[in-house]
């Protein structure tokens, strides 16, 4: 209750303030915006056409790049012309009405776009990065030109279509459509190398784990409709912000909504307890890991909670739980990342960890920090994955950081090495980088917002920042610095023209790396950009969520918040955090520098020392084995289900099939055998049977009226 008492006035004050901006208008002036949605869909169809025509060149890639690029340009145009929340109606989709208990009920979910600043923020980096990564993939996937190439780009296009529907839809049903669509596209692309059993298993794992979250989302949407009678954002937010609705109202079915939505978000964004699918999802081609499993799709959970912020406030414990889950996930994933050797897996755990930060931000009431971190993270994590992909591409699948060294001194690898370095600085939160500012916004808010041990979470997050800096630079110092030596992987392309020598990336990859790296560096600028909207601090990103439903999480919004401003180390938390997190980031980098560049043997001896001591042996082992989470899930969830499934199968086989079904099936055949003798093919016998039958019926009906009375009563009915 403490939290409620302290922050609720703040929220309510904001709600009142927000009321006048938050009403979306229907606008047909932007009907061209629907092309943002349709272009990727068109691209999917054209890729399908390419598959049908058996096209054996890079045409599908150019189709995809062109349509996504056009989508990006249209999104930019939409941003430039933007002036307040807008609904763009495309067509009527679901429009049902009926009467229940003499009340008219309706269910409306139109195929419409809801364009507000939050939508635009997401769409800008989704389409922008989508275009660039598709361009990168045109070179990366070239060894598969032909059928696989087309399949890949069709998958990317359908992903973009679904992601657009998810982000731009004006109601929860359309969001759900996109949600399932991106899940399907993710399944499609993780399982791209479908001849590899591990890829197929990873695809299934991703799909099934996501189903658990999706169930939560579906139930949440149902309960929202059940309680508020709508799934349309504009109507829903009007109800929630309106005078008629009291925050404390409603029974369990209202209080359950935030938790169900949370479950959906945790599934899609890989948080505890549903994070296990994301590391395995790295089985997919690297551009997919960069686009779907780092930059865009996994942030759908953050988007959902930011979009549904007013709904998340329906239960006072919901956001604190989000914060704790996010904080703990960040720590857990960071510890796992420290002990992995496969660089794609390190980056995957790092993604989970950074997503944890974003949820922490949402939980401690800074949707601004969360959204900003999503934005910066999308750039630098994309760079990290794309450089990892370039390494994998050039070294025939080699990803083990112990087997490659001194990349920056190899010919042709300079761009990869230095773009990776810049991205590492961003991820590590090195002062002055974009990651530094976005992370600090979240960390500081943890000390500002009162309640539920958020200060503890803040310290956990700071420790995690140090770990992050360490594992990030562990990768860079191992791979890019040091003496030149390497060992090729065992995955050779079909056109193996380079033998046992690595082949450096060419134009498309280098170009894309440079562009996105510039984006990652410049992502720090919006933090300092003056914003035009009154009342919102925090630069351009703050402006970008100002007139959306996530407005409640803006910094320094209400006047009341200033008076309760907490302090950290005797300073304003935002100022203090620059020193604390910057310092711990540099500290992590220095440790990595010593252990993995200057004295690489020290790292091994440290590990051996830990393993040698029986008291500390568990630590590196457990970290390397990912805290045995997969094994625990296997034992407590999969094994019992497997046993129950097989028991039911035996029951079905022996009791239902053999017993009931076959038993009943025998009865008609026996009956048939009884009547068979009547059907003997002799005319006279037929005649007698017919006449006899007619006589029998006549006698039954006429001579026994009592029987008829009884039968009639039995049969009932009017006739």
């Amino acid at each position, binding site marked *: 209750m403490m939290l409620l008492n302290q922050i609720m006035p703040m929220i309510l004050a904001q709600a009142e303030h927000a009321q006048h901006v938050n009403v979306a208008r229907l606008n047909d002036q932007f009907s061209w915006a629907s092309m943002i949605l349709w272009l990727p869909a068109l691209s999917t169809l054209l890729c399908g056409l390419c598959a049908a025509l058996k096209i054996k060149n890079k045409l599908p890639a150019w189709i995809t790049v062109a349509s996504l690029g056009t989508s990006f340009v249209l999104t930019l145009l939409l941003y430039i012309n933007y002036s307040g929340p807008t609904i763009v109606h495309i067509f009527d989709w679901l429009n049902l009405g009926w009467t229940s208990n003499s009340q008219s009920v309706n269910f409306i979910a139109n195929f419409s776009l809801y364009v507000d600043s939050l939508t635009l923020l997401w769409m800008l980096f989704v389409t922008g990065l989508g275009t660039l990564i598709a361009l990168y993939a045109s070179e990366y996937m070239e060894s598969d030109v032909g059928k696989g190439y087309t399949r890949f780009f069709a998958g990317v296009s359908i992903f973009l279509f679904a992601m657009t529907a998810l982000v731009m839809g004006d109601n929860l049903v359309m969001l759900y459509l996109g949600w399932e669509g991106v899940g399907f596209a993710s399944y499609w692309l993780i399982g791209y190398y479908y001849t590899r059993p591990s890829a197929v298993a990873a695809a299934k794992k991703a799909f099934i784990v996501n189903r658990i979250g999706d169930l939560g989302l579906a139930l949440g949407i149902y309960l929202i409709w059940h309680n508020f009678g709508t799934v349309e954002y504009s109507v829903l937010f009007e109800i929630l912000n309106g005078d008629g609705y009291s925050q404390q109202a409603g029974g369990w079915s209202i209080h359950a909504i935030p938790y169900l939505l949370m479950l959906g978000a945790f599934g899609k964004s890989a948080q505890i307890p549903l994070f296990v699918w994301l590391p395995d999802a790295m089985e997919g081609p690297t551009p997919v890991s960069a686009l779907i499993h780092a930059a865009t799709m996994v942030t759908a959970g953050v988007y959902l909670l930011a979009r549904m912020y007013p709904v998340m406030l329906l239960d006072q414990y919901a956001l604190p739980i989000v914060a704790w889950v996010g904080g703990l996930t960040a720590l857990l994933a960071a510890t796992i990342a420290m002990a992995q050797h496969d660089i794609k897996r390190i980056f995957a755990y790092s993604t989970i960890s950074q997503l944890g930060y974003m949820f922490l931000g949402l939980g401690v009431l800074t949707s601004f920090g969360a959204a900003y971190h999503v934005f910066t993270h999308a750039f630098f994590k994309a760079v990290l994955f794309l450089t990892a992909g370039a390494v994998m591409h050039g070294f025939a699948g080699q990803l083990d950081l112990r087997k490659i060294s001194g990349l920056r001194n190899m010919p042709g690898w300079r761009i990869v090495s230095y773009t990776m370095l810049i991205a590492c600085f961003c991820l590590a939160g090195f002062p002055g980088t974009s990651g530094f500012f976005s992370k600090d916004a979240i960390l500081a808010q943890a000390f500002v917002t009162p309640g539920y041990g958020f200060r503890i979470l803040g310290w956990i997050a700071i420790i995690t920042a140090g770990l992050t800096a360490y594992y990030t630079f562990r990768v860079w110092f191992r791979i890019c610095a040091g003496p030149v030596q390497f060992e090729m992987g065992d995955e050779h392309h079909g056109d193996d023209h380079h033998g046992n020598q690595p082949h450096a990336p060419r134009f498309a990859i280098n170009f894309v790396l440079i562009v996105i790296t510039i984006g990652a560096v410049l992502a720090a600028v919006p933090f300092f950009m003056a914003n035009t909207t009154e009342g919102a601090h925090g630069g351009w990103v703050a402006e970008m969520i100002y007139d959306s439903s996530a407005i409640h999480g803006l910094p320094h919004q209400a006047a009341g918040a200033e008076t309760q401003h907490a302090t950290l180390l005797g300073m304003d938390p935002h100022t203090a955090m620059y020193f604390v997190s910057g310092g711990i980031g540099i500290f992590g980098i220095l440790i990595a520098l010593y252990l993995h560049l200057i004295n690489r043997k020290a790292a091994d001896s440290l590990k051996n020392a830990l393993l040698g001591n029986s008291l500390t042996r568990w630590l590196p082992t457990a970290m390397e084995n990912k805290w045995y989470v997969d094994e625990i899930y296997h034992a407590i969830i999969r094994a019992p289900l497997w046993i129950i499934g097989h028991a039911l199968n035996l029951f079905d086989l022996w009791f239902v099939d053999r017993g009931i079904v076959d038993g009943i099936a025998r009865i008609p055949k026996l009956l048939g055998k009884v009547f068979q003798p009547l059907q003997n093919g002799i005319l006279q016998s037929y005649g007698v049977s017919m006449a006899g039958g007619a006589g*029998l019926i*006549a006698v039954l*009906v006429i001579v026994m009226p009592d029987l008829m009375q009884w039968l009639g009563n039995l*049969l009932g009915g*009017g006739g």
Partner: protein
Amino acid sequence: MADKLWFLLPEIWLFVGVVVLSIIGLSKSKSLRDSLPFVTCFFLIVAFIMTPFVYSADRVADAPLLMPMLGKYVKMIVCAVGTMLALLSVGLLDRPLEAAMAEGRTRFDAIRVNRGEYFAFFLLSLIGVMLVCNANDLIWLFLALELASLPTYIMVAISRPSSKAQEAAVKYFFLGAMSSAMFLYGFALLYGSTGTIVITELRDAFTDQTLSEGGLSRLAIVGMILSIIGLCFKIVAVPMHFYAADVYEGAASPVTAFLGFVPKTAGAVALILLLSTVGWSNHHGFNVDGLPREILTTLWMIAVLTMTLGNVGALLQRSAKRMLAYSSIAHSGYLIIGLIAGPPFGLNAVLFYLLAYGLMNTAAFAVLAAFERRGQEIESLDDLAGLRRRYPVMAVVMAIAAGSLMGMPPLLGFAAKLYLFIAGMNAGHVALIVIAALNSAISAFYYLKLVALPLLAQSTPQSETVIPRPVVWPRVAAIITAAAIVILPIFANQLIKASNVANSIEQSALLSATDDLSLVEKVEDGTRH
């Protein structure tokens, strides 16, 4: 009289067709005689187009008939399905002669060819069915029924050069005669009880009996039950179903398809007319407590026995034709549910079902008629094994037809069965619907054989020898009917509306058409929820 004759224009037109066909049938030119089925189709199609114009609103208002609009619907479906059946019969007759001519063993011999008669009888039988719905007295009804039946005896006999066909024809003829005697006796008793043979007057007389004596007279009940049982022969229902398996197996497949549709339609329409004289509880302007208990019980027993014996019998068959014969019996059982339920839903469902059954029955037999083995038509289920590998289209048609007969959504058979069951439920016959649903489940067992054998099974040495018949038209008919089975469910609402207009009573046809719209909406509501 002129009013009545006006509605006979389609029949008169078809009778012109009969004369033309008979004359062409005497021609010495082979090509002219080969055109016979297409001439038949031409006459049927023109009659089909003509019918809606004949049943114009102002004419119908003055018609001295109990259900004036019945003819429009029934005549149209008879002409439509009849066209398909005529296509099925292309190249059916004189097969040994054709084969001999193809091998050059003999020349065309006008005396030995009898396809002219076949198609003339074909049309005559259809005229019989069409006349049934115009019947306003019992004599007319009897004659029309006989006109529908008598040509079929001959069609069975000449359909193929085999002693089996002769045997089937003789059995069919004798048992048919017996059934005719039975319902003629029933008609006589009805006359004895009421003193009239005019159907509209019968209806008034029965109303009087019910009002004055609290029920129908014993004589009327006996007459009614005998008539119903006699008509059971036409619709192939227990206890008059025994002939079905033998006759269906003995006749050639196109004729079997004909037998499955034409006499059944005649019988069902005759039963609708007869039962409407005693009336159902919600019959227009006819306030009785529903069907008299004795008649209800009779129909109830017949329905249950018919569907059960039909389905159980079909389970044991290895011959596709015998299986379809039993399936025809089972479907009559379902049909009677609609007769029990009564108007408007029950009769709507019956009329809809007649069309649906006619199409799916024709489709199934068309596949059988499309193939032959060593000049003989195929009969056994084993002949169909692995059909998909060599003739995928026909295999799919068979699967569609069997699926529809089984009542699988979204095919036409499903909609038809659904309407029947809903009508039964609405009338309160839950037990009957439960039994019918169980029967439907049993029927899936053998219909799925017709789906699985052509599509999934491997070819056997026996089925490898099956080849398509030289004429293409049975296959065309198969594809058209299968397409109709797939497409028509989309228009189920319109068809049900048409059949609803068809069974409205007397001159109120136009008035009640507006009332009935609300009823139709109720039916639709019922299906929607």
